[in-house]
């Protein structure tokens, strides 16, 4: 018997929990060479900015143990070209699309939301908060609860009511729960975590930083323990909020780990560079793992590791709570 893999981002149903991670599947066309994008829960775009951006100079990537550093610098064609070319391409194919947006001011995020508000084919908007706030001496939004909340409420106010707004959080903060709470209070319908923590490597031949941009974001399996911890902490504190777990997912086991920690959807990023079929493989492996453990529905596994030991029933048949069951932490069992 197959497992019911459906999940919800707020009220929006996804056929399964696997999404691409923002910025790791370019505009979608490249990935579509390998498989039909409708087979995954959703495709997250790279972060769309107002103007076209050439990004950072090369080298942009450095391999690190079980991970990589990147400083792409949000290269992209800008919102107009995105709306004219990339989004229609996706929406014509009915690809469920999470549009990631990035800005340098609260206003810019708002303007992006307004431009997206009447575009067809936007399944959800993900707000990439890992951008420096040029109005606050370049302090990164994601490291400041108040600034994050301001961005989210501006986006929430300007985006169509039926499109969920997802706040994408970074792990390099002292208290991820505080930031998550601020975003939810600001109107976030869901959270996505983690974005890449800031890292660096130095080339011991040239004696210079490996990346042209000096520092870069660390991704890949190396950061998975940080992602699991963030998802766990936030799900414990805010059990009703849907979480897209992202960070170091290579296999179905890894996705399952994030689900057990509290994620109702799972983003696959760096793994796509290694294996263009990673999303489908992770989906299949996750389903097999759930099946092998007697789960009938993905929803029943969300946050399950929070239950006290011994209380885990592997063969639930009772109906799960309405909203994607991400609040199972509170359910009795």
């Amino acid at each position: 018997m197959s497992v019911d893999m459906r999940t919800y981002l707020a009220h929006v149903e996804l056929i399964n929990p696997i999404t691409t991670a923002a910025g790791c599947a370019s505009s979608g066309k490249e990935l579509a060479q390998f498989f039909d994008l409708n087979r995954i829960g959703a495709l997250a775009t790279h972060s769309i900015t107002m103007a076209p951006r050439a990004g950072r100079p090369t080298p942009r990537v450095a391999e690190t143990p079980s991970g990589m550093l990147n400083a792409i610098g949000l290269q992209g064609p800008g919102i107009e070209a995105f709306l004219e070319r990339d989004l229609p391409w996706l929406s014509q194919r009915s690809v469920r699309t999470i549009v990631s947006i990035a800005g340098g001011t609260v206003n810019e995020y708002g303007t992006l939301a307004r431009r997206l508000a009447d575009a067809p084919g936007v399944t959800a908007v993900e707000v990439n908060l890992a951008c420096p706030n040029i109005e606050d001496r370049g302090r990164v939004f994601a490291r400041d609860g108040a600034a994050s909340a301001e961005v989210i409420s501006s986006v929430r106010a300007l985006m169509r009511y039926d499109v969920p707004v997802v706040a994408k959080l970074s792990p390099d903060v002292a208290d991820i729960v505080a930031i998550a709470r601020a975003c939810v209070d600001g109107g976030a319908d869901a959270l996505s975590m983690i974005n890449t923590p800031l890292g660096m490597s130095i080339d011991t031949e040239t004696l210079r930083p490996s990346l042209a941009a000096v520092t870069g974001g660390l991704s890949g399996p190396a950061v998975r323990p940080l992602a699991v911890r963030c998802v766990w902490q936030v799900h414990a504190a805010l059990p009703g909020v849907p979480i897209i777990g992202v960070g170091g997912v290579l296999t179905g086991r890894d996705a399952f780990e994030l689900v057990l920690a509290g994620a109702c959807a799972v983003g696959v990023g760096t793994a796509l560079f290694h294996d263009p079929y990673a999303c489908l493989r992770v989906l299949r492996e996750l389903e097999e793992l759930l099946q092998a453990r007697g789960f009938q529905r993905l929803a029943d596994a969300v946050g399950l590791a929070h239950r006290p030991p011994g209380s885990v029933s592997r063969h639930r048949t009772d109906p799960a709570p309405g909203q994607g069951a991400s609040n199972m932490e509170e359910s009795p069992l």
Partner: protein
Amino acid sequence: METPVTPVQVTGTVLTTRRVEAYHALTVVAPGIAERFRPGHFVAVAVGGPQTSMLTRRAFSVHDVKPDYGGTVEFVFTVRGPGTSWLAGRRARDTLDLVGPLGRPFPLPRDPVSCLLVGGEYGSATLFGLADALQQRDCRVDFLLGGASEDRVFGALRARRMGVTTTLTTEDGSLGLRGTVTDALPGVITDTRADVVYACGPMDMLRGVTAVSVEFDIPVQVAVEEAMACGFGMCMTCVLPVIGDDGVTRMVRACVEGPVFRGERVRFDDVGTIPFDALGAPGAPGHSGARHVS
């Protein structure tokens, strides 16, 4: 330009391993890749085996495809870091995970023109498939191959067999002319009356080859090598500034828009930078304030 083909992922068996001068060559059974191959394509190879700490694939030009076992692919490489040193340890019957064929292949001339194929170090590897295809179109093919020293000039023998003429250069003078292929290029163009130049090798060499070709006013196609993380267009690692048909410079991906470009379109002097006049360059009109921290 040729349109890209759909790449596939293949877990193939290593058929043979051999040393070729300073290089290693691996032949892998990979029918899906072999059948789609056109000259200029490359493959992206997973390294390190299960539980490895190395996540990114390594890119290698396809040196040869053969019909044996449904289709084999050979690539030639030099040991640089941990990934290539792992590859050097592969033995026959091991399996290898390849994605390919990747990139835009070399465009082929419609008419039987005279083609000069210029290769530096292992860059020569990609030229033999090209030479084949050109000769099938009755093109004249000449070779100009170079390297730091004799053992680093790849494919001299095969070039001698295939080319009308073959010129070799080494920086230390251990084989052929002392110097670089760029030094020898004007003479060879003149001697072979080349109508078009194809080149693959280090960036510096491609810059030089392009400059000379432009001086001679003959078209030049270069296959560039930029550090890559995916090889199929998703990560935006491998960009370099290239001038489009509209005269606008864009940061384009070497893995999907390239690796083959018209030489004069590549802004070699600006590789590793974002030229101020590139589309979306910082400070350019309308450039967004947004900056991702990474």
